[in-house]
């Protein structure tokens, strides 16, 4: 046996050994980074995922890979003088984005704050499910702020998370190695980690998915709000906007001067959370009264 053959054999048997330890297929293991995929690679990845999900969940998924729309920069507004803290947005988000029910993962966190204070350290997000709004308190829902200058992207060692041209910060779950540096870097506590294999009841699965958004995740990857990329890239409102019973959530294209979010910024008092960190969130909180 010559040297070349030996190395070849050793490498391939090591690869087999490495793969046999986890439930990854060889195609999945060799899959390219999303931004470097060719058309054929994308098609192959789509077919592989649809097949894999059919085996796992017994239904056909519609997997989108739509790129960002031209001339669009998303922004989000949240009216703090209307929000009552009912958590309807949280459950709509969980349903829409196939978040794990057990262990529980929720991308939106609703903080209850004492009136007159903006100290996040004193906030409470495990408050009881009672009648809201409660006197003496106001609520701030927090989710990914889709920063223009995102610290989570800077720290990722594998470039598994990046900012899309329309402003959404996305994750390629196949490239995430689960180091959780991004979770440590995020000042808004917006990223979630799949510590265990996520589980979703089959009848609650949303089969309209996007590669960079709500496709079912695996154990050991980080996930976060994507402004419902599977809906917004088709022109629809995010699920939380439609679910809010008081109409506190506003969404639109900030490059369009007639959009709701442009009007909010033009006519209301807005602020961005932890503005002093220079993360430049695309998420604006405002007061309409």
């Amino acid at each position: 046996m010559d040297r070349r053959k030996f190395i070849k054999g050793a490498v391939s048997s090591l690869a087999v050994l490495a793969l046999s330890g986890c439930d990854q297929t060889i195609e999945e293991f060799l899959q390219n980074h999303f931004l470097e995929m060719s058309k054929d690679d994308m098609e192959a990845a789509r077919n592989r995922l649809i097949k894999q999900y059919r085996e796992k969940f017994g239904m056909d998924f519609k997997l989108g890979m739509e790129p960002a729309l031209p001339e669009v920069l998303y922004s989000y507004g949240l009216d703090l003088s209307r929000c009552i803290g009912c958590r309807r947005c949280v459950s709509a988000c969980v349903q829409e984005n196939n978040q794990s029910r057990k262990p529980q993962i929720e991308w939106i966190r609703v903080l209850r704050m004492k009136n007159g204070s903006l100290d996040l350290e004193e906030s409470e997000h495990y408050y009881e499910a009672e009648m809201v709004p409660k006197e003496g308190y106001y609520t701030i829902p927090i989710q990914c702020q889709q920063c223009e200058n995102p610290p989570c992207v800077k720290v990722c060692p594998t470039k598994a998370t990046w900012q899309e041209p329309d402003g959404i910060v996305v994750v390629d779950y196949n490239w995430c190695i689960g180091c959780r540096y991004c979770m440590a870097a995020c000042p808004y506590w917006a990223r979630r980690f799949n510590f265990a294999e996520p589980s979703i009841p089959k009848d609650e699965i949303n089969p309209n998915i996007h590669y960079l958004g709500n496709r079912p995740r695996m154990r050991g990857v980080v996930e976060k709000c994507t402004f419902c990329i599977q809906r917004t890239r088709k022109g629809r409102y995010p699920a939380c906007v439609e679910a809010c019973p008081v109409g506190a959530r506003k969404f639109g294209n900030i490059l369009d001067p007639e959009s709701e979010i442009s009007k909010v910024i033009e006519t209301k008092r807005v602020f961005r959370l932890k503005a002093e960190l220079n993360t430049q969130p695309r998420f604006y909180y405002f007061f309409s009264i």
Partner: protein
Amino acid sequence: MKSTWGVIATSTAEKEGAMIRYPSTIMGVFLLLVLCIAPKGMAETAGNDKPDKQGAEAAQEYSVPPPLVYQSLYPCQACHRRDTRGVSSQLEKESGFLGKYIRKPDPQPRILIKMHRNINLNHAEWMWCLNCHDTDERNYLRLITGEKISFEKSYRLCGQCHGSIFRDWKIGIHGRRVGNWKGKKLYLLCSHCHDPHSPQFRKLPAEDPPRSPNYGRWGVIEHEQE
């Protein structure tokens, strides 16, 4: 509109001195100006024939989901109507103007004891039914100007008093919209969220809090419970 023509008038007057020296150039420029501005100006005049803001507001269409009343009591004129049985002419029948009321409307503000007792009227002290509902044609609402509007356009009625909220609603800051941020969207009416008879927003039960990560630390380990 007037100002546009005014500007042209003054500019031509100023240019008259120069015109003697460079007649053809100046005339060319003037003609060009007139050609550019005149069609636009004329279009504006045509638009200005409509009364004013009020007219523009009436013409503005917002696509709204069906008002909630359409699922319950509507059409109101199933009960609140005139009896046309004794009327001979078809025209009179259709106009519904002749004939006796099945129940004659009583314009006197009072507490209703026989009908609509489930309506809890708690909307400004002085308000009562006929401030908003049309006396003769109950399928319609009535603006303060006397104009009849359908329930789909009830935002105009509410906007008469709640002007700043109406302004915010029109540009999408107040209220809810569903559908597409880009393309067709539905504007929820005021009455989809606020009961028009008692408009203050009611308290809602909040949904369950997230599970505390404390399990495992004080002996309650989740997977052992199963």
